[in-house]
């Protein structure tokens, strides 16, 4: 009980305000008559410290017996006002902070940010750097989806897939470590190019990994996709139809699982994505099962993109000639990229000084999570973990 982050401590503020507004205390039941039927109403707290909320997320569930009738997410436990910090740093100094947004896809976060600043400056990037960016971002997508698949299996009680996925993810992290010296927060993208070139022999290692990775998907299929228990567990739950998905601003795999063929790499191409040939997986059952299939398929598509980028990789410079102090001209821009979780947008306002005047992150998981109550209503308590897992949230990015 209590809220340790509160500024004003006292008898009143020790009780969470929203909890005091509830008609009955958390954890107690009350029988109510509704349309001639007796309902057993109860409020249950899920989190903030709960193994399957993937971080510190609190869900207040309103139950009727086993059925969820309402769900209120409470976020902000990881809030550090990233946007205020960025306003007090110079443009290149913000790059390491973007790593900490979505710590499972740091490369994609760096990518989005440097692209925004470059768009504001009208800066071109050398071809080799563009290819490096795509290769690393797509490897990151595979790593992120692997971690999602592993922990999703863990949520559903399928522990084996977790071990398999982490084995492959480890190899990608080794590749990243060889490139940037870091395993999680890379800060490898620079405004105008990349920090370093690929080390010797890295390209062969990358190709060897892709060759090794491709036959792993059938292996996962044998473990989970073809597993009838796994299928029955996630089919038909967490449904959100295409119209609501657009209305709620869902993006990425969540939108594609609702039957909409929408991928920013194809529909609003940035960097050099228009040069590659890849498919956009779409499934229209709108449920957790569809989201699983979309991400499974996306890993294979990313492999295709990386292979093409490796084949086309030109030699040459990896950084454009940049001024010593980066001062974008006054103006504002909103740039969106496709991160593993969906549309990652950066809204940047420059006043011509070396520091951003206003900097806002449109986090994909933030919007995807806001639609959770829609997906949860009418589901069983046991399914809540599967539905939450299917959104693929990273609290570092939601709370910022």
């Amino acid at each position, binding site marked *: 009980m209590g809220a340790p982050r509160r500024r004003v401590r006292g008898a009143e503020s020790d009780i969470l305000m929203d909890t005091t507004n509830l008609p009955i205390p958390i954890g107690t039941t009350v029988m109510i008559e509704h349309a001639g039927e007796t309902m057993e109403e109860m409020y249950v707290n899920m989190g903030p410290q709960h193994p399957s909320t993937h971080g510190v997320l609190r869900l207040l569930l309103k139950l009727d017996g086993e059925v969820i009738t309402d769900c209120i997410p409470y976020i902000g436990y990881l809030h550090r*006002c990233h946007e205020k910090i960025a306003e*007090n740093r110079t443009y290149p100094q913000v790059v390491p902070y973007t790593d900490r947004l979505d710590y499972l896809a740091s490369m994609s976060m760096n990518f989005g940010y440097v692209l925004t600043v470059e768009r504001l400056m009208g800066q071109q990037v050398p071809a080799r750097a563009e290819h490096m960016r795509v290769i690393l971002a797509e490897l990151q997508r595979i790593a992120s989806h692997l971690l999602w698949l592993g922990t999703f299996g863990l949520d559903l009680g399928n522990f084996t897939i977790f071990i398999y996925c982490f084995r492959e993810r480890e190899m990608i992290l080794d590749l990243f470590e060889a490139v940037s010296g870091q395993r999680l927060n890379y800060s490898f993208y620079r405004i105008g190019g990349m920090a370093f070139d690929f080390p010797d022999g890295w390209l062969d290692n990358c190709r060897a990994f892709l060759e090794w990775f491709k036959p792993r998907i059938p292996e996962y299929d044998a473990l989970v996709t073809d597993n009838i228990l796994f299928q029955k567990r996630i089919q038909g739950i967490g449904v959100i139809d295409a119209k609501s998905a657009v209305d709620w601003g869902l993006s990425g795999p969540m939108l594609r699982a609702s039957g909409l063929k929408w991928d920013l790499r194809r529909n609003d191409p940035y960097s050099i994505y228009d040069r590659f040939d890849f498919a956009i997986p779409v499934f229209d059952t709108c449920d957790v099962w569809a989201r699983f299939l979309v991400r499974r398929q996306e890993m294979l598509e990313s492999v295709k993109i990386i292979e093409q980028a490796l084949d086309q990789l030109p030699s040459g410079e990896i950084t454009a000639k940049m001024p010593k102090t980066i001062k974008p001209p006054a103006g504002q821009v909103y740039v969106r990229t496709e991160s593993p979780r969906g549309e990652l947008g950066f*809204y940047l306002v420059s006043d011509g000084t070396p520091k951003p005047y206003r900097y806002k992150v449109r986090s994909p998981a933030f919007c995807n999570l806001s*639609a959770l109550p829609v997906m949860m209503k009418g589901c069983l308590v046991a399914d809540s973990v599967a539905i939450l897992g299917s959104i693929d949230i990273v609290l570092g990015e939601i709370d910022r």
Partner: protein
Amino acid sequence: MTPDEILEQLKQKFGDALSGTEVKGVEVRLTTAAVNGRPVCELLRDLGFEYLNCLSGADWTTHLEVVYNLSSLRHPHKAHLRVRVDRDHPVVRSVSDLWRAADWHERECFDLFGVQFDGHPDHRRILLPEDWVGYPLRKDYADERLVPYTDYGMEEKVAKTEAAKGAPKAAKAEPPKPLSKNNVTGEIPGTA
């Protein structure tokens, strides 16, 4: 419909209420006052912008601003709408019934900028605790725990390089003479 036609339609309906109108590639950019925020949004929604990408605030010290980034999944057009809000009475009509995505975005904007969204279904803080005092992203936000960022030694360094640019290059200091190989005692020559 081209972005120019979209802008034409908006101008027809709102006329002088719009300012800073411009078409940048596929993006329509416009600025308007708080009272027109909601009607412009309604028209944009009818013109096919069914996806709200981002809703953010900005503090321009003289006034606040709510910025809407809209797009469509059917055509490539984008809209960038800036709504000026009075700093002392920051109230705009909520658009959370036009785009449900605005729900949390507006709560965030209220949380960090203090803009009130009239008609919002669940007007609470979202990221900060409910009894937090002040709105952190305003430029004049003060907090005794806020430690200003210091570029440790950076200013001196810059001043030094600036000074060095003008001043003639200082003569290179002579490197100390190496000790003679025969000097096994370690005595410094010339001191004895």
